[in-house]
């Protein structure tokens, strides 16, 4: 590992072992390109090697991101990435585990995993590529659909959107941030901090769907996003709630780190893997329980 670490991690490293750029299946202009660019910037800055990286993704357009950059990648079920990531991180804390999901993955089918991963607080960065729709199945509503729309459009069939940041805070997440893929440089800075966080880090990234979400466009986001004031204290939970309320009142969307308060956690060791580590398992003490 040390030998590889010494090699200069350049942005180009992330192009290897990946689908070539011209075969990327996202629509031209898709917000996910911004997320990909930001992710590469952050990984390069932190000099993470592709070998120590495990990227777990969900289903849909967002789920394809693992094929578009170097690193170990796993693509399981819709709503599942956080639970796979949890298992991997529990047995091998040396891995850099990143989970990438869409808003459906995280807040609809996968909400059961999301809520409890916030409580469990494993050292995983989870990026939500939030576009308000299910893109790959051609534009159905997602839980964050309708952000910024007038209330009259909502009915029982299409309820109003909910706030990912509030859910994360309520569930006990220790790092809650928001970024915009239209500004990859800023997003990359947030990812860097999320990757350095000693605990579960959730980043909600506005990643516009240019094909199906004609309302929350790049322009719409540019008009509505606003960086969190420099004097905001992210370690103060009450300040985080006040900030969300304040931005809501003003009809603005905060970008930046809303809450960051790592718990004092016990470090775990990697579980035994290799035959020599497992060979001398002496089960006699367990058998004696039944004598």
């Amino acid at each position, binding site marked *: 590992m040390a030998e590889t670490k010494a090699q200069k991690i350049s942005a180009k490293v992330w192009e290897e072992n990946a689908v070539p750029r011209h075969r990327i299946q996202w629509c031209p202009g898709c917000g996910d390109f911004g997320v990909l660019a930001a992710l590469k910037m952050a990984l390069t800055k932190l000099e993470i090697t592709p070998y120590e990286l495990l990227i777990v993704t969900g289903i849909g357009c967002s789920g394809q991101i693992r094929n578009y950059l170097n690193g170990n990648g796993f693509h399981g079920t819709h709503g599942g990435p956080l639970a796979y990531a949890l298992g991997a*991180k529990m047995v091998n804390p040396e891995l850099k585990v990143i989970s990438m999901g869409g808003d459906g993955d995280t807040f609809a089918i996968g909400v059961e995993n999301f809520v409890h991963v916030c409580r469990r607080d494993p050292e995983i960065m989870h990026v939500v590529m939030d576009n308000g729709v299910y893109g790959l199945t051609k534009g159905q509503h997602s839980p964050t659909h309708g952000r910024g729309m007038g209330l009259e459009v909502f009915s029982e069939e299409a309820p109003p959107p909910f706030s990912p940041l509030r859910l994360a805070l309520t569930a006990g997440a220790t790092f809650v941030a928001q970024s915009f893929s239209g500004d990859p440089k800023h997003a990359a800075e947030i990812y860097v901090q999320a990757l350095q966080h000693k605990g579960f880090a959730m980043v909600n990234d506005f990643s516009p769907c240019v094909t199906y979400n004609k309302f929350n466009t790049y322009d719409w986001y540019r008009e509505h996003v606003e960086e969190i004031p420099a004097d905001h204290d992210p370690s103060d939970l009450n300040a985080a709630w006040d900030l969300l309320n304040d931005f809501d009142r003003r009809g603005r969307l905060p970008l930046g780190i809303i809450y960051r308060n790592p718990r004092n956690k016990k470090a775990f060791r990697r579980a035994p893997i290799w035959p020599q580590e497992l060979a001398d398992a002496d089960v006699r003490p367990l058998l004696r329980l039944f004598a």
Partner: protein
Amino acid sequence: MIVNNLKLLVGGVQLRDGVVTMTDVLGRIMTRAGLYVLAMERGYASTIYGAHQFDPMRITETPPLSWGDREVDVLIALDYDSNPDAAPQPNRDTVLRHGRELRDGGVLIYDSSTGEIDAGELERRGIKVFPVPARTVARDELKRDVVKNIVMVGALFRVLDFDPAGTYFRTLIEERFLRKGQQTVDINIRAAQRGRELVESILQAKGWTDVGYRLEPRPLREPLLLISGNEALSIGAIKAGCRFYAGYPITPASAILEFMEEHLPKYGGRALQGQNERESIRAAIGAALAGVRSMVGTSGPGLSLKSEEFGVSGMTETPVVIVDTQRAGPSTGMPTKSEQGDLYLSVFGGHSEVPRIVLAPATQEECYTLMMEAHELADKYQCPVFFLTDLNLSEGRKAVPESFFLSQKARIDRSTLVTEEDLRRDGAYRRFAVTPSGISPRLLPGTPGAVFKASGSEHDERGFVSTDPLVRKAQVDKRLRKLQTYLKEDGRPPQVFGKVEGRPVLIGWGSTRPVILEAQQRLQARGIEAAVVHFTHLWPFPTEAAKPLLEQANTVICIEQNFTGQFAEVVQAHCLVPVRRILKYNGVPLYPSEIAEGVEAILRQGVSTVRITDGPVPVKVSEGD
């Protein structure tokens, strides 16, 4: 006088009377005294408090073939005031329910604290009745209500003329309670002593010198362990290198989770109580992805929820061992009753076609050995391996010599994992390389020199998503080819007991083997020579081994605990022989006599399917289970 061969049954009110504590104490003392104990057809209810609970236990000098029939020799009724409406024997649920099962000439010991029962009918059947006011003694004399079951232990030991010096009893009680203080030990010893005295006075009053049954300690050549299927398979998994376990609480699999949470960290591993069934299996897949041998345990309803991930494991070729401790019924069914109803879900469950291996142990010993094999197979074939036990086997306890466990070696072959050296030597790495065996080299994240891309979507050899027809065909062929390799290299033919040619053949799978073998003996005594063919390796079905065997049989009869005969269908489809069925699905375990009668009905009357029912219960008993 029958020495060292009896079946006893302890009954009482769940959570109140200490039925399980009593049988645990008895079981441990008997195994320490060198006697074989088999306690497998436990009865309890999905309520926490108040329902009727019973725990039968067979105690023998040599290892028993099975738990035997329903009849019991000694009945111990711990309940004293339950079911007040049931005339003419008030307050005696256990007596009402199990009195019929008591053999003529047997023994009944009951708690007479709230009055004596009308024992005339029982005495006419030669049953020796011992009214012991255990609860009154415990509460009024010893001021400790909970020791009433220990009063009964003392009473039972006197009845069976066992441990007169109280050495076995004292040792166990000190081990158990010394940390709670000498006073607790003394109260328990006095409780047992009072039980002895009460029986002594009855024996004298009635002029009985013996009751027909006796237990004698045997010289102990080696320690016997009283172990359940759940415990045996958990230790087997640890021995096999399993270092991650995830589960969601569900009867009867929760015991595995509790065991693993307590003990896995001592071996460097970790256990997770998932927030739901899906998180459990996903986390297990994630742990396996990181390279750790990993396992989940659940029961039928949980297996349904997990079925989405069968495909993920099969498609991404991530090994996982899935324990299903089957219980009765679809939906939530009967959580505390046993069945063999999940074969279809294990073999065919999940959408499209998933390569998988399905194993089913028959005994507590096999829970241990087959579990080691399960992890080995999962690792080698990189697919889900199902491990089908059931409530009877999982929670049933059996005395097994410790040396049996110590003599089993685990094989931890991780040669399908590629190392840094392999990567340097071989150059380009392809996670899903098409190989003649269907097994591709597996890379763990963190290995310098290469990365893997795994996907549940169809993918090419490198793991990139692809719908190219040629790629699709090559990958499907590759994945399913593993099963052919498995059959060639690791598949096991069924175990055959007796001569098959021209004879009736009794087929079984999983935990029913002991009862089927005992039924075979009963049939032999009645002049019917039958063979038993028993499967532990269920899927992929070993057609090449089974078909020529079954074609020689005169009649093939499959015995299962389900309605349709799930395994019978599988055998019939693969071997092209008609399979007759003996089926039981009322939640009560199979008994050898029922199987023997079913076989006779099939052979003599030519019926194709026998569905076993227990006779109606003629007495009014309390509700709640």
